[in-house]
């Protein structure tokens, strides 16, 4: 198995017990029609990528539950034998958020979406490291969970924060000197699927700029 050293160039994180406010949507998605179609995950991803200063390039996006709100809308429409919204269906796929990012930023580069349960953010980081290694480019690694849907209390046993996300921009380091193993710097109450990347963002905030990741 292979380990690589990564430079962390920037990071951002955000979370809220219910709904995240002030995601700066009007500036980040100035086209009103486009903005109205954005899912919660898309809005959070746009916010985080902007905070990281990432406008264009390869993206590796991770989410365990992805577009839960759109999926719930579809399931309820089927149950009630109502009309299914084409927009809800197209917005229900796991790559919706980075796809909206690509539309808004005219980013024609590669997008990979990872959904590996509670180790989603670790696998997203590993995949972003691979993409950085193969391309020699900077890569946006971003994970988002938005599960703030009606009746979520029936099933939520894993988080105090119904909307949360974390992102880093990374590149391959020229050497492994002073590269740190990922420390467990979790944010209590955040869904486990985000915690590994949350730890990397916290390491960055603590001044650590180089980490080691096994591919």
């Amino acid at each position: 198995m292979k380990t690589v050293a990564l430079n962390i160039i920037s990071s951002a994180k955000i979370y809220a017990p219910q709904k995240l406010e002030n995601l700066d949507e009007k500036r980040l998605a100035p086209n009103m029609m486009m903005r109205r179609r954005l899912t919660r995950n898309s809005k959070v991803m746009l916010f985080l990528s902007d905070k990281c200063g990432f406008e264009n390039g390869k993206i590796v996006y991770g989410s365990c539950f992805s577009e839960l709100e759109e999926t719930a809308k579809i399931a309820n429409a089927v149950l009630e034998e109502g009309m299914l919204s084409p927009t809800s269906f197209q917005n229900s796929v796991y790559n919706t958020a980075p796809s909206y990012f690509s539309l808004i930023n005219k980013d024609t580069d590669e997008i990979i979406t990872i959904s590996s349960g509670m180790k989603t953010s670790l696998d997203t980081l590993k995949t972003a490291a691979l993409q950085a290694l193969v391309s020699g480019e900077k890569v946006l690694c971003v994970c988002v969970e938005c599960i703030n849907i009606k009746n979520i209390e029936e099933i939520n046993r894993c988080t105090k924060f119904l909307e949360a996300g974390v992102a880093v921009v990374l590149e391959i380091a020229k050497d492994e000197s002073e590269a740190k193993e990922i420390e467990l710097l979790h944010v209590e109450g955040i869904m486990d699927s985000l915690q590994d990347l949350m730890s990397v963002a916290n390491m960055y905030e603590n001044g650590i700029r180089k980490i080691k990741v096994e591919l």
Partner: protein
Amino acid sequence: MKSYINNYELWCNAGDTKSLMKAVYAKESALVEDTTFLKEATAGLGIMKYDDIYSLMSEVVSKVLKSSNLTDFKNTLLILGSSVGGMQECEDIFYSQKSYKNIDPNKYSMNALSDYLLKEFSFYDSRSISTACTSSANALLLAKRLINVKAYENVLVVGADGLCNSTVLGFHALSVLSDKKCRPFDTKRNGMNVAEAVAVLLVQNFKTNDSVELKGVGASSDAYHMTNPNPEALGAIDSMKDAIKDANLELNEIDYVNAHGTATLANDKVEALAVEKLFGKSVHVNSTKAITGHTLGAAGAVEAIISCEVIKHGLVPAQTGLETLDNKNINVSKESVKMEVRNIVSNSFAFGGNNTSIVLGVCT
């Protein structure tokens, strides 16, 4: 380090790999016209015969393990590509109980399938990818890159998707479902057929007498529209070009394009344009979705297996369901063509303008 596909097997509406290839060359579509999913209309669907997706995956993976040089998967990375994951089971619970209470969140998401296989076969590690209809093509993309950089010696790629109410009804809401067996690239095509499949490929860093080389991978984003492809076919062209460049091949070294070819008006028009702009009539092109239907997240893996078989048979299949070719500037044949097939481009395109192409070929 080069990558080789050394073993594979699948299960789809046409059966296993052997039965599927028999159907492909006989031009016998395995699709059915079904009235159970849509009350107000008939839908062409590709429905498998199986108990549940978990035991089916287990069976197909076991076959691949048995045919391989491995005794177990302890040194193998599992990469799953799926668009619905464990949705089937969760839908059933929600529709019958009208509540989320008894849904196990661990069985809802993509990793429900990979976690099951991880436990069942003790893989070194697993990860699951979900980029809609490019999911398992992207799993192959990552497998190749991981082997190329010597991170792994063995990667098992699994593409798996079962039929769900939400996908069939969702595609119906988008008005892209055909009520008949689909007819890719035909002037009278009227949409796609949703289908299901499990397809498994073992990618390794050494070749055998029976290997097919995974030579190149490429991916792009349209950055145009969530469901409609770029009308100038720029994204599709980019992913094919990138894959061919990655394979260190020239355009004239490609013999066949196994198209995404869903038989929707938009996809086939744009994909035909992409092939026309890139190759003209110099390559054979067709879509085997006329036999299998669109197996969504599993499609990339299914069509990679079909491509391996086409190379081994030296026989490019005819386009099933074709009467009148829409774009006359590409080479879609109504009859199978016996020839040496050196290299194949297999395309997968998805919602969000996500494009992935892979190049498979005779080992060098």
